[in-house]
């Protein structure tokens, strides 16, 4: 556990230092923010996908709930996202709870399907109530200039603090869940649910906990995303391929179930995305997800059984302490 916390501290310091050194209104700072955001998203997915082996393809639902809740509260009531964020997290947890009731006993692909459908359902809901959400046209975060109170800034520089903080929180939660008592229980559930039950582990409760925590943190990430990009629509925040699959991809590429996996994944995925869209701007649309689809296929083909051992090979950092 101490090793994990140390690692998180080092990454945080590195991110903050980098943020200080770079031009606060420059392009590179933006990329740094995107990396931290992506890493946080991946880490959220890592909690259920990596620790509990529940393959979710619907994390976009929680992401979008977070983004929309905090933004709508701002547009309709002028309420600061610092309040909007926990409200969004609460909504996301409720949604996760409702979703898990019928799906908790589902296995593999069926669970994935249900989560996928749930993400889609959320997208439909967002488009269907334009009065509140702005509908398919999207919604904007009211611009007030530099303001910590309203969680927004002109240049990308200040966002580095915010996103680093997010990443630290999510990673610390991950570390807590993968060590100690919870770590044992989650690993048992992941490796053999039946045997775990018989050995006295309340598997449903363990899975539910992971699910609720992951949903809440994903919503928080959604809120921060909204505050960063100022504008979004249902297509982008509830996107199966853009959010849900991307979250899984980031965690998998970097090493599923490991603490550092998502940051490694983000450091690979985000710059690659930026590179592809910069140099292939005429055919930019689609080249990034296309490439990542290929990467995903390649990973699976190179180690089809290995994907599971990729899941399990690296024990959650320091699980032996």
């Amino acid at each position, binding site marked *: 556990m101490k090793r994990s916390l140390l690692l998180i501290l080092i990454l945080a310091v590195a991110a903050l230092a980098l943020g200080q050194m770079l031009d606060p209104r420059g392009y590179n700072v933006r990329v740094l923010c995107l990396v931290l955001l992506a890493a946080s998203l991946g880490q959220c997915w890592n909690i259920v996908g990596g620790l509990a082996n529940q393959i979710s393809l619907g994390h976009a639902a929680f992401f979008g709930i977070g983004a929309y809740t905090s933004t709508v509260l701002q547009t309709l009531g002028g309420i600061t996202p610092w309040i909007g964020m926990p409200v969004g997290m609460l909504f996301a947890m409720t949604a996760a709870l409702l979703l898990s009731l019928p799906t908790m006993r589902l296995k593999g692909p069926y669970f*994935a399907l249900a989560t996928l459908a749930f993400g889609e*359902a959320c997208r439909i809901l967002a488009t269907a109530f334009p009065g509140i959400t702005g509908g398919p046209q999207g919604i904007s975060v009211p611009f007030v200039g530099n303001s910590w109170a309203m969680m927004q800034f002109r240049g990308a520089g200040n966002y580095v603090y915010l996103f680093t903080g997010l990443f630290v929180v999510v990673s610390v939660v991950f570390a807590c869940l993968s060590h100690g008592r919870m770590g044992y229980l989650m690993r048992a559930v992941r490796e053999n649910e039946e045997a775990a039950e018989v050995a006295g582990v309340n598997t449903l409760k363990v899975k539910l906990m992971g699910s609720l925590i992951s949903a809440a943190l994903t919503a928080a990430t959604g809120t921060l995303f909204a505050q960063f990009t100022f504008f979004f629509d249902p297509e982008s925040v509830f996107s*199966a391929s853009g959010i849900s699959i991307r979250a899984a991809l980031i965690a998998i590429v970097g090493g599923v179930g490991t603490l550092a996996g998502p940051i490694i994944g983000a450091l690979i995925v985000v710059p690659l995305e930026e590179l592809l869209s910069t140099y292939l701007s005429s055919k930019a*649309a689609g080249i990034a997800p296309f490439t990542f689809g290929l990467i995903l296929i390649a990973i699976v083909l190179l180690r089809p059984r290995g994907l599971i051992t990729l899941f399990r090979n690296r024990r959650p950092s320091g699980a032996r302490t």
Partner: protein
Amino acid sequence: MTALLQTLTDGLLIGGVYGVIAVGLSLVFGVLKIVNFAQAEFLMIGMYVAWFCWSYLGLDPIFGAFVALAAGFLIGAACQRLLVQHVIHAPPVAQIFLTVGLLAVLENGALMLFGSEFRSVQTPYQTAALEIGQLFISMPYLIAFVAAVTISLGLWLVLAHTWIGRAIRATSQNAQAARLFGIDTRVIYAIAFGLGTGLTAFGGGIILSYSAVSPTAGTQFVVLMFTVVVLGGLGSVLGALVGGLIVGVIQSLSTLVMPIQLQNLALFVVFITFLAFRPQGLLGKGAR
């Protein structure tokens, strides 16, 4: 009352098509025991093939659909042989992410090749309708439905009365026994997969007369397809066809009580309910 009858009719006509679109998914699961997350992309492929046949060859989409069937079959069989075959015996995690990766590749490949704009066709019968009493039966719907029924019959004939069909059914029931009888299951897997994707592509072709195609056309059908298949029972061909009709009717009827954008929401509720309480669907074989 007429409104009800009208929506019911529309629902059945569309539902018949949904059945054909989804039957491929059921077939793939029944034979290969794999949930193909990329299945809906073959709908999109079928639509593009049929569109290009119309655009360059002047072929009516219904005939283009047959070309789409062939194209879908070939591409699908190739995907199976080159990619899916390697994860047949791998953990579900690997299968999920392989087909998910394929989904991303196909959808964005289309985006890169064809751009994001919507393309549609014009057919002479596009706005025509048959009037039976108070009912308006839209021609494109009707023709698509007839095509769907025809191809379903074709599928039934193939599965029930040809050697290939029997081999496919044997493999889906007991692959090892099938091998002992000299059936090369790898070939059967490729054929069954290709047949499944081909049928979905055919479905894309026949809906072209009333739906526009774009790279994201497939993803809009993902939830719908899976709802049909889960309702009817994953692995059951008849179930998919019946499920399609039911889904079409549900979708249609739900427009009577809720705004049109929410019609798929009703489907989602149905989908989740069945997954939770009756995963084997109405007619299917084990879904866990």
